[in-house]
């Protein structure tokens, strides 16, 4: 975060080239390439089963992958582990949230800073205040067990917990899944706010309309291949995207 911004070239946080992921003999992702710059929201949209969650799981090290992965200018070896990536500031907010249900909201948040704590940083109480500023609702619920939260609050907690790690790249898997429209709007407002404070994000979404509105750049993932890519504004007006993902009235 301390490195000065290059004048012309925005620095690349994550660069993936020719990435393939297989489940046994079945290949789920076929040689795709993408790039995330600093302070940028990149979205990957696509239908169910296109491989979006597989992509994020492979990036964070939960699944083995083939291809080139350069993160923060460093080529990642094939044997990299989730823990190593977390230490380097990559954090995943998983589709299933994966909260610690029988622990309080504040304990969930504190555990988000576990790796920083282990590395010798003792700033978790300051960070938790920042997270409470971003999600005032979590502040109100801080003593409540995570398992008793509503769907929207759980998503906020999952995001807040990830922010406790002070990530340089946040991977968001379907943050709008199963949430009411009003809550979705709030979540996406927060995503936009996070970009304004400099967090790079790779956002995987089925809710293409909301994702394209907030993102800077977008990829369309279909059956394991990237079929389209471009700045999200131009993708939102692309007839193929409108027909497949935005439906009628996609542009007003």
């Amino acid at each position, binding site marked *: 975060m301390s490195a000065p911004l290059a004048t012309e070239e925005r620095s690349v946080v994550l660069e993936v080239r020719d990435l393939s992921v297989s489940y046994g003999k079945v290949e789920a992702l076929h040689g795709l390439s993408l790039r995330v710059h600093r302070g940028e929201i990149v979205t990957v949209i696509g239908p169910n089963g296109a491989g979006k969650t597989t992509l994020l799981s492979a990036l964070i090290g939960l699944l083995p992958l083939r291809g080139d992965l350069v993160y923060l200018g460093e080529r990642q070896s094939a044997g990299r582990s*989730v823990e190593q990536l977390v230490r380097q500031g990559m*954090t995943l907010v998983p589709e299933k949230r994966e909260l*610690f249900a029988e*622990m309080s909201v504040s304990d969930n948040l504190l555990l988000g800073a576990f*790796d920083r704590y282990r590395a010798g940083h003792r700033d978790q109480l300051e960070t938790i205040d920042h997270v409470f500023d971003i999600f005032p609702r979590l502040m109100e619920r801080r003593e409540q067990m995570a398992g008793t939260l509503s769907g929207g609050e759980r998503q906020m907690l999952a995001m807040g917990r990830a922010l406790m790690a002070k990530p340089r790249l946040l991977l968001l898997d379907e943050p709008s899944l199963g949430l009411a429209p009003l809550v979705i709007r709030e979540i996406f407002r927060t995503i936009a706010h996070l970009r304004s404070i400099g967090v790079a994000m790779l956002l995987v979404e089925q809710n293409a309309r909301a994702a394209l509105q907030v993102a800077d750049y977008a990829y369309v993932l279909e059956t394991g291949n990237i079929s389209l890519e471009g700045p999200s504004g131009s993708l939102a007006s692309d007839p193929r995207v409108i027909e497949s993902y935005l439906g009628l009235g996609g542009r007003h």
Partner: protein
Amino acid sequence: MDLQIALLLGQDGVTNGAIYALLALALVLVFAVTRVIFIPQGEFVAFGALTLASLQAGRLPGTVWLLLAMGTAIALIEGATAVRARRFRRLPLILLLNCGAPLLLAASLLAVSPAGLPLPVQVLLTLMLVVPLAPMLYRLAYQPIAEASVLALLIVSVAVHVTLTGLGLVFFGAEGSRTPAFTDASFALGDAVLQGQTVLVIVASILLIVALYFFFERTLYGKALRATAMNRTGARLMGISGDLAGLLSFTLAGAIGAFSGVLISPITTIYYDSGFLIGLKGFVGAIIGGLASYPLAAAGAVLVGFLEAYSSFWASAFKEVIVFTLIIPVLLWRSLKTRHVEEA
């Protein structure tokens, strides 16, 4: 049975129950975090007691050799991994931690005669010799198959248990040992006499349980262990690796086991294979708690202690039978009460 005998047996029951409770807590902890049913838990009790007895008798306890051997094995494995990954700077630390520290401990045991040392130092030396064996066991036997099924892990546990019992025979011989009481104090309690050692065991157990409670509720590492038990994937995504959680929970289990051994060694004669039965009674307590609830496990273990004490009076030949038969109604009740819900 008159009141005096009842009180005497009650004393026995509480003392043993306190030890079983500690072991039950360790078993629940290890199972919740790593899904390992830690049968060798009892061996740590025996190793703790017998190592202390060896030190007091002025002998070099055999656990030193085990510590050195396992340390060397781990250093070889970790060293090879580091060399393959070309991370040579990690080598000194690996060597120091796994070979250097055990060697230093062995050398200092040879240099001074441990028999003449004050008791607290002997206890400390015992813990330093026995406790590290637990995380080393995790590293060597369990970590390579951490993702295996509960059954596979259980089979490894049986193998580790048999190996450790055999090593116990080699290290300490077939004779049992008993260490002198920590305190000769005794208190009058009506007609009965309350032994100072009994009070010591109970107080020490309660203190240890309170310390564990604070560890799990107040420290980030304790919370990380609970988090791993609740949601393994979630914990990994926060950088809490399964390896770290496994090493930490095994260290705690080893410490609880060795400490229990030190506590009971003045009360009962401990043989190289005594640990198994003691651990098994802790396991009955843990089963009463469903291998999940800490308070229920502790309460169940105390119940086992009482049941054992009183049944040894009325039907001493069936003492063990009665204790282990307790499992059957408990399992029945548990299986009737629990509804199996598919995870969402």
